[in-house]
């Protein structure tokens, strides 16, 4: 183990980087909601641009319901976008039509789902899912090699004895154990980008650090990139190079992790960071933000944060702010932020 902080990558400047691995432009996803009468349109994701570079860990944080999982599901091709384009190594996903291409993409860019209770098939033991993935995506492996690989990935996520865990059914595992099986499955594919949706939310702090270190090591040793969705901002700081902040379907701020945390520009980011508690500090019942949820069902133009925003000006209720670069690599979608 190195004494270096795990989040590295600062040494590589953006100019030296090869093209992005995964890139989305104008990504939009709307859902119809409200029952059969009163049909309404829910804007889960609106006009999102994002880039994941090789060997990069990008953290995505933001309000619950702001569209983070939807972004990941769009990138994983679980949902088809309402608008916008996604490119993997420069090639548009829409043009990848053959089964071979889809399979290739799925193993290169696997997703770890947020809810491990509904994403594992209860009818089969844990080994089944991992095996099936290996047969599909790494057909060159022999049966004993597959077994060895399954044991390797299960041990990597800290589940021991691996052979014993592989024989169990998902319902025989605790929440945190299931969550790590989801992560292990993604590892088995030898991926280039893992879309990890809250992969550590059910883990205690000690095992959580272990898994974050696994992510950092995979990046260092196997050049794996991550989209790391989390509510644990300290953990985003611990592993990520860049931080994206979502609010009500929009990315409202993006930039190098340390910089965003040290000098947040968007008022929502500021609110979010001010609410991060310090577990070591005493009990402090600070002011509670009783802000009502933002309107994403048939939203009106204007900034979606404005009703909770201490800085709002007139323009905020008429013009939706776009992301603007305020310092190199650091942008915010706010009329007022400088």
């Amino acid at each position, binding site marked *: 183990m190195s*004494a270096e902080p795990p989040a590295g990558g600062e040494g590589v400047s953006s100019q030296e980087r090869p093209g992005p691995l995964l890139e989305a432009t104008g990504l939009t996803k709307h859902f119809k909601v409200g029952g059969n009468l009163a049909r309404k349109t829910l804007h889960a994701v609106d006009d999102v641009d994002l880039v994941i570079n090789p060997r990069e860990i990008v953290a995505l944080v933001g309000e619950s319901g702001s569209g983070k999982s939807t972004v990941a599901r769009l990138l994983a091709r679980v949902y088809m976008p309402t608008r916008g384009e996604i490119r993997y190594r420069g090639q548009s996903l829409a043009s990848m039509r053959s089964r071979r291409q889809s399979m290739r993409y799925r193993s290169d860019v696997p997703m770890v789902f947020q809810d491990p209770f509904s994403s594992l098939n209860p009818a089969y033991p844990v080994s089944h899912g991992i095996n099936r993935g290996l047969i599909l995506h790494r057909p060159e492996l022999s049966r004993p090699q597959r077994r060895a690989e399954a044991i390797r990935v299960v041990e990597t996520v800290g589940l021991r004895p691996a052979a014993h865990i592989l024989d169990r059914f998902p319902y*025989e595992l605790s929440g945190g154990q299931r969550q790590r099986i989801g992560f292990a499955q993604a590892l088995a594919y030898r991926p280039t980008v893992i879309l990890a949706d809250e992969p550590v939310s059910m883990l205690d702090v000690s095992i959580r650090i272990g898994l974050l270190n696994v992510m950092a090591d995979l990046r260092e040793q196997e050049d794996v990139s991550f989209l790391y969705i989390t509510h644990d901002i300290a953990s985003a700081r611990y592993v990520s190079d860049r931080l994206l902040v979502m609010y009500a379907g929009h990315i409202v701020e993006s930039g190098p992790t340390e910089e965003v945390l040290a000098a947040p520009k968007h008022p929502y980011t500021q609110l979010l960071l001010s609410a991060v508690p310090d577990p070591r500090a005493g*009990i402090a019942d600070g002011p509670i933000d009783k802000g009502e949820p933002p309107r994403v069902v048939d939203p009106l133009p204007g900034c979606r944060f404005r009703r909770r925003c201490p800085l709002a000006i007139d323009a905020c209720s008429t013009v939706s702010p776009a992301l603007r670069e305020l310092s190199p690599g650091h942008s915010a979608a706010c009329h007022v932020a400088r």
Partner: protein
Amino acid sequence: MPDAPILQVTDLSVEYAAERQDVRAVDSVSLWVGKGEFVGVVGESGCGKSTLLFAIAQLLSPPASIVAGSVSFNGQNLVTMTEKQLNVLRWRDYSVVMQSAMNALNPVISIGAQFRDALQAHGRFSAADIADRSGEVLALVGIDRVHLKSYPHQLSGGMRQRAMIAMALLFTPDLVIMDEPTSALDVVAQRSLMGQIRELQRTLGFAVLFVTHDMSLVSHYSDQLLVMYAGQVVEIGLTRTVFDTPAHPYSRGLLDAFPSVRGERRRLTGIPGSPPSLGRPPSGCRFHERCPVAEAECTTEQPELYPVGEVASRCLLNRPPAVKG
């Protein structure tokens, strides 16, 4: 303590029956929750926290069963009650928020209909009352009421979790049992939700027993803290005391393992080794293989819970001298 406890759990043990060997996921756990009190439970993934809550709420299903102990709720032993008797109490007198909302909510019924069913199980309510109450609890957890018409899969992870919490607050129960209630929430929503629950607790006086991995949540909201390791309570006491002066080496490890948003960024390692198998727990102290201060006797001697100031700790190093030798 002024009041008799709302919940008194005594020597509760739970086993999962298995072909090879039974797994004792909860081993002789005792705890009590006073009126209006917040009690937090922390511990390693897989150490038996959810099993403990399920056992208390009488929601275990085979192969799991309570093999010993009692759960006294408002003076009645829940363990010996029939399902019919329990149904009278559930939701109304005590409610449960499970670790996976997706598992707990019915996927083919809208949120509003599930709230209606829960309400109607305990009395007659007019459609208007039902709509009012449902909208009210949803607003309390920060969800737009259009989602009464939504199905669980149409909600985000955190919204499902909040919908579950809303459902647990439909009545005004004496005890709310919550398994990782805010693991899918952003910190702003979490703060506001816990603040609201605290407020309700102050006005209505209900008690909360909750499991979490979020150390800041316990540190800010729980009065008493229970630390579990491998199916057993290893430390129990006032949260503040445990945080300031953790007595058990496992509690110390847990409190050292989280990164911070401020200060220097450094590599952390967590507690070395992995949790023991509950089917075959280690001899002596269950933590000895991973313990930085273990001594020879820890490998053979089974520690009990010993009083250390205001807390109790299951560590031989905390054994009072009078009992030694």
